[in-house]
C-alpha cells in the first residue's frame, strides 16, 4: 500500500473518467475520523485527488457494486484480494453485472484495526489471510509486493477448533455471553456481500423491540447459515460489529465443515 500505488490509482481513475470508459469510480476517501477512510464514488476527474488507499482502508467495496452495476455505464472499482473473492460470488449470484465493472486489483499488505484513532495490530481477517491472488481483475496496480509479507501464520480455523474442543455447555456459555451483547444493529448483515436479499426474513419491524438473547442466537444462526457455501470469509462482519462479537467463527465453522453436494451416479 505504498504511496505510489495511490498515485497510480488516482491517475488511472482520472484517465478512465476522462476517456468516458467509466462513468464513476468506486474507491476510498478520507472519512470523518482520522485513520477511518470510507468508501466513495467519484464521478469527475478532479475529485479523484481525494482517492485514498492505505492500511486503514478496511471496507470491502464489492457490495457497493450491486447498486453501481444497476445504473448505466461502467464502474471502475479497486479491489483487494478478499474483496475480489466477494465480487466473484456476487457475479455468480447475478447481483453484479461483470460487463459493467472495470476491476483493478490493488496490492494489499493487510489492514489494521483502529481504536480511538490509535492503530492496534492487523485485522483478525488479515491475520489468517490466505488470499494473495486476484480471482478476477482487468488490471493490477502495486501488486508486485504480494504475497503479503505480513502473514503471521495463525491457522485460519484455529479459533473454530478451539471452541469445538470445549464441551456443549462450555460452548453454550461462550455463545450465550457473546450473543447477549448483540444489539441487533444489523451492521453485520448490511456489510456482508452475500447478504443481499431484497427483503430479509429477519427484517420484521417487531424485532426492533428490546432483543432477547434467544432471538439474538437465532438471528445469528440464520444469518450464518444463509451464507453456507457462499461466504468468502472476507471478515467484514466481525470487523464492523460494534460489540466485537467474533461472528467470523460462525461462518468459518460452516466453511470448515462444508461438503459440496456430491451426487453419486
Amino acid at each position, binding site marked *: 500500500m505504498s504511496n505510489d500505488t495511490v498515485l497510480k490509482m488516482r491517475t488511472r481513475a482520472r484517465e478512465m473518467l476522462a476517456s468516458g470508459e467509466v462513468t464513476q469510480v468506486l474507491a476510498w476517501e478520507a472519512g470523518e475520523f482520522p485513520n477511518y477512510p470510507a468508501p466513495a464514488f467519484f464521478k469527475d476527474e478532479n475529485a479523484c485527488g481525494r482517492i485514498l488507499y492505505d492500511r486503514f482502508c478496511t471496507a470491502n467495496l464489492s457490495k457497493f457494486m450491486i447498486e453501481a452495476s444497476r445504473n448505466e455505464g461502467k464502474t471502475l472499482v479497486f479491489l483487494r484480494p478478499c474483496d475480489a473473492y466477494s465480487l466473484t460470488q456476487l457475479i455468480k449470484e447475478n447481483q453484479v453485472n461483470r460487463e459493467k465493472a472495470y476491476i483493478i486489483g490493488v496490492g494489499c499488505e493487510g489492514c489494521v484495526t483502529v481504536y480511538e484513532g490509535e492503530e492496534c495490530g492487523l485485522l483478525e481477517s488479515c491475520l489468517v489471510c490466505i488470499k494473495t491472488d486476484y480471482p478476477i481483475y482487468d488490471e493490477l496496480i502495486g501488486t508486485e509486493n504480494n504475497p503479503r509479507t505480513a502473514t503471521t501464520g495463525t491457522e485460519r480455523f484455529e479459533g473454530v477448533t478451539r471452541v469445538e474442543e470445549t464441551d*456443549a455447555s462450555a460452548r453454550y456459555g461462550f455463545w450465550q455471553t457473546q450473543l447477549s451483547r448483540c444489539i441487533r444493529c444489523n451492521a453485520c448483515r448490511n456489510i456482508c456481500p452475500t447478504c443481499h436479499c431484497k427483503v430479509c426474513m429477519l427484517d*420484521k419491524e417487531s424485532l426492533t423491540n428490546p432483543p432477547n438473547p434467544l432471538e439474538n442466537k437465532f438471528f445469528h444462526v440464520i444469518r450464518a*447459515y444463509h451464507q453456507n457455501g457462499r461466504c468468502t470469509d472476507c471478515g467484514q462482519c466481525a470487523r464492523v460489529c460494534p460489540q466485537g462479537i467474533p461472528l467470523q467463527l460462525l461462518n468459518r*465453522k460452516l466453511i470448515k465443515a462444508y461438503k459440496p453436494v456430491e451426487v453419486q451416479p
Partner: protein
Amino acid sequence: MPVNIVAFCCNWCSYAGADLAGTSRLAYPSQVKIIRVPCSCRVDEAFVLRAFIRGADGVIVCGCHLGDCHYMTGNHHTKQRMEALFGLLEFMGMERERLRLEWISASEGAKFADTMAGFTAQVEKLGKNERYAGKCFEAADAETTNTEATDTETADVEAMDVEATDAETADTETTNTKAAEDI
C-alpha cells in the same frame, strides 16, 4: 413434562415407512409427531429452528436412502444442509443428540419404529430443551393490541392469525412469506 419430538418425514419413503410401522402395529413413543413434506429437501432451516422455539426438544429429519429419492437428488441436498445446520447448532452449544438425520425407506417399518423409540429415549435422557427455547420473534406489538384474548396460547396464535389474515388480503404488499414470525 414429557419431551416433544417433531419428525419431518418425506412423503415417498419415511412417511410410507411410518405407515408401514402402523400397519405392522409396531409401537413407538407418542411424543413423536410427524409432519409430511413432499421430500426431505423441503425441510427449511427455519422449520427446524421454529420447532425448537415453539418447545420441541428434539427434531428428526427423515428421508429416502441416498440414491432412492423420488426426486432423484433431493436427499443429497438435505444431507448437505442438515449436516451444516446441525453442525452449526452444535457449535453454538445445542446438544447434538437433539438433532437427527435418518434415511428410512418405505419398506423399513421396523427401522422407523426403532429409530423413533431410540431417538425419544436419547432426547429424554437430555430432558427438556432449555438452551434454545422460550419466547422469541414474537410480534410483541400485536400482543398488546389484542386485549380480549384470554390465555397466552390464544394470544400467541392470535398474533399469527392477525398476521395470516392480512397476508391473505394484502397479497401484493411485500410481506415476506418467510417473515420473522415464521421463524
